């Protein structure tokens, strides 16, 4: 078997410390999750950073978070960092059964937001990042639609017309009082 250059990787995924584990130095993060961690919820859609079905949340130490496209970002970029994937949002009991969804997940299902759901992980993560940002820094009601367009606008969904994703996201933000009137 060939010797492919590897490198040690440690990171935190959904609150759980992973590694150190030796993986190829040029491995993409999506392959690390799929082939090395068995976490397949982050979907490979385009493999090229376009469709955003793969995005995960990168959490920073200052409490901010951002979307990362893991199909074009190397696994080692995340060395020492903390990420959340679609598998990590819902609250689960000791048996691993879902007890509660995060507000975005709940609204997405209430609104029948997705169909096949292949793109849903990306939308959940992007909308979650938006909601968390607005929780730190609310915006004026008049800016809400623009903020949603900004957050979700590049995500591809081939089943839906995006309508329910957008409406559900707006509903979450409004219900949490993150868009201030006037």
């Amino acid at each position: 078997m060939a010797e492919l250059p590897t490198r040690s990787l440690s990171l935190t995924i959904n609150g759980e410390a992973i590694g150190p584990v030796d993986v190829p130095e040029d491995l993409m993060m999506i392959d690390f999750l799929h082939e090395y961690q068995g976490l397949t919820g982050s979907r490979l859609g385009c493999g090229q950073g376009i469709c955003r079905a793969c995005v995960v949340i990168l959490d920073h130490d200052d409490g901010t978070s951002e979307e990362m496209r893991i199909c074009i970002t190397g696994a080692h970029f995340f060395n020492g960092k903390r990420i959340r994937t679609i598998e990590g949002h819902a609250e689960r009991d000791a048996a691993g059964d879902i007890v509660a969804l995060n507000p975005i997940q709940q609204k997405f299902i209430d609104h029948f937001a997705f169909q096949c759901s292949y793109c849903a992980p990306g939308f959940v993560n992007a909308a979650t990042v938006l909601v968390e940002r607005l929780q730190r820094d609310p915006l004026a009601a008049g800016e809400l639609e623009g903020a949603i367009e900004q957050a979700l606008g590049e995500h591809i969904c081939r089943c839906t017309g995006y309508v329910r994703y957008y409406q559900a996201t707006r509903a979450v933000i409004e219900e949490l009082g993150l868009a201030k009137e006037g």
Partner: protein
Amino acid sequence: MQHPHLSRRAFLKGSVAAGIGITIAPLGSRAFAALFESRVTATPEPWASPGGARFRIDAFSKVCGGKVFARDIRARDMPGWPRQQGHAMLLKANRADHAYQGFELSSLDESLHPDRIVTAADLERDGIAFPDSHGPDPLLPQGKTPLYIGHPVAILIWHDFARYRAAKNALKFRDDLIRYGAATGEVERPPYGSFRYVRVGGDTPFAPDEFSSLKDSDLFPAIKNRRPVWPDDPSLNGDVGERGLYHAQRMAEQLEQPPENWEVFQARYTTPYIEPGALEPDNGNGWFDADSGELHFVVATQCPQEAARETALMLEGSRFAVRHLNVHPGYTVGYGSKDHNIFVYYAALAAMYGDGHPIRLANDRFEQFQSGIKRHPFDMDYRLAVDRDSLKFQIFRAHLDVNGGGRANYSASVAAVGATAAQSVYYLPRSDLATTAYPSRAVEAGSMRGYGTLQTMAATEMMVDELAERLGVDPFALRRANLLEAGMKNTQGAIPGGAIRVGEILDKAERHPLWQERHERRDARQAEDPDHLYGTGFAISQKDFGTGAEAPMASVEIDAAGRIRLRQIAIDMGTGAATSQAMNVLEVLGRPADDIKTGETDWSELALETSGNPYTMSQDEQDRLSQTPRWTPRLASPSSASNSAYYASHATREAARLVFRHGLWPAALSIWRQGIYGGQANPYVIRLEDARWVEGHLTANGMTPLSLATLAAKAHELGLITGASVHAFNRWSWASAEFALGEERSRLPLDAVAVKYGDGADDDKRRLMSSHGYHLLDRQAMRYPDVQLNNAHVTYYSPVATLVDLRVSKGSGEVEILEHYSWVECGKPIVSELVMGQLEGGVAMGIGHALLEHMPLYEDGPGNGSWNFNRYQVPLARHCAVWKQGGEILPPLSETDPAKGMGEVVMIPVVGAIVNALAHATGQRFRDLPVTPERIQEALHG
């Protein structure tokens, strides 16, 4: 030419799959529950109540990343498989004008060379019989010219992920891997199919036809020099083909020399080459266990039965000595592109050559563009004659050329379905529709949402709008004057099913402010905004659902605690079939199914057998075969053709009805009649037709409401029918037979029924349950719809209309959809949210078809492996007027309306509406799709 397999999905043959046993176990099934953190349809709170669905039955798993697509499966997930996952890729030739002379992997580091390379020579030597319907040359032999750009030449296999990934990265995008020899030009082949549908109606739309497909026949040409050739000198005294052609020629003559008061419109329309873009790319993962002779195969497909049968046939007789095939269809999504897909067999072959390792063949997006099934481009020559005084259409002539690409897929059928849909919502007294599907060196086209009708009906709506302008009449008035009304015949001479509510939709649309105020709004905006042109457009279509050979199966079972278990053969392609099928039970049994298994393929209790081709068999053959008590024209149909809402529901509801009628209802009567003198029931008259479910409890004529649990317990106690498994067949009409159920004998719209009796059943009844736990009933007086109904081509329609408001940048030619609104009539929707979701998604896909999506067909096209979503623009939210759109579902005529399929028609009117709005904005008629900024700039600025 031979009578072709011309109807939709006509290509499935036979039923008995070789000498290889087949088991199909969906990944969502209980056998696999332990694999996954949470079962796909497990929810911590009830997903539905008697009031309706609160969310999708599989919503929790979908929103938590737990829904398992076929693509997610690795060897480690599969019980009994070796844990190390191997991987494969297809090596492809991306020139189709030179002979292929082998490949060259020397650029690859020695250590990364594949562990196994499979070529045409291997398949030949090992006795692999690749499915005929996908042939020839699955792997191109040396010396031959590729049939199309992207023709695979080898399967490369690695036994581990790390080397596979490194090697694939090194091999991607290289154009020096394939050696080419002499220039040969494109491989020339005859058409995939060519048909003509001629109709000359009687004196009124209701009078018998003079000639039509249904009354007489479809017409078939001779093929000379790879083109269809029709008789030169047809006559009314000739055979049916000559008679049909005679009428076609009369029409042609009259269009050339029309009466004074006719306007003859002529235009040519073309449509784009479209990538379905299902986000889950094609994939399969298989392990061949040579010791046991078993092939285990996880695959993404819309048609697991076909995939399993064809895989078995392919491997039967090969050197591999396959004894059993375990197929695991995963959840997937396809919009048609995973129906009848050659990819399945490449993946199965990769597994066979895995040398004991599980092998996964999974396209990345570049590969999916390179090899995935496309939507057919149409080139359409339309002529329509109208009487200027009455505004009535006189003759419609449409000649269609359809580009099917490099492999015969459903091209012939798509060409036929496109032609027979071209009439859209209009009555056409005379019509001549000729259609030919041609091969080309493009990546193959096949089934994709719309299936030819999108192409032809959108063009019809562009034509009608332009014709109205030319006649100087209101486009709604022209449409109204020509509506196909209930009882009138379609272009094949068949009468569509049920009421036709197109006129109602027209009334609503015409009254809508978007339409009423269109001129004022445009003029006011243009006065304010010199940078843009504004316009509003409308279009309406009605589309068939189903294939003309639908074969749904379902079983409904209720346990003594009142839990309902539903098994369905349909696959949930993401549209919500699992949810809606579970909801179907609600009306009949008072609550939705608690447990649903979709994609179920083990229906051994029905012991059905099949032979012959439902589309092409003669009446004699059908009469003879239907004497066999367990014969059916078709065992199973794929999940496609918008077929779940109506056809799959038919089976679910019929099964539920049997459980109600022969289980719960007699149980209720028994409870209500408890006590002396017939108990509480005695003073009243109790009628079955008065049975009502109220908040999950059954009542009738004032009887005490009874919970499902109570009724189920009683039905079990009494040994009544507590489960039913059914099969049905539809050829634009349901097959029916008489079945004895207890004392009663009923004619049911089913061709196979098996029932289960409750726990308290006596020994006699228990003995009857000898067919895999069911009592398989013997049908009598079986009636299958006449084979001639194949020539109806369609009788089920759902209409949709869309209004679009848009603006065009004068400078860039870019189009922005500002607002749109749609109406859909789909009978009684099962879950309205799912219907609206389909509508919104369909409109988005239609916007892509009309404005955004296209690729070159050949050398620079997707076959060259450099296409992805950065070059191919699928609609994003900003293209869809996401905040400013609306739609409504017409209320059903009554709660007894059937639910009708609408998954495809929703995307059609928006296409015509956009082009018509562009005419309103720019004064230009665009006939080539998509209407790109370049085309608009060309039209605006020369």
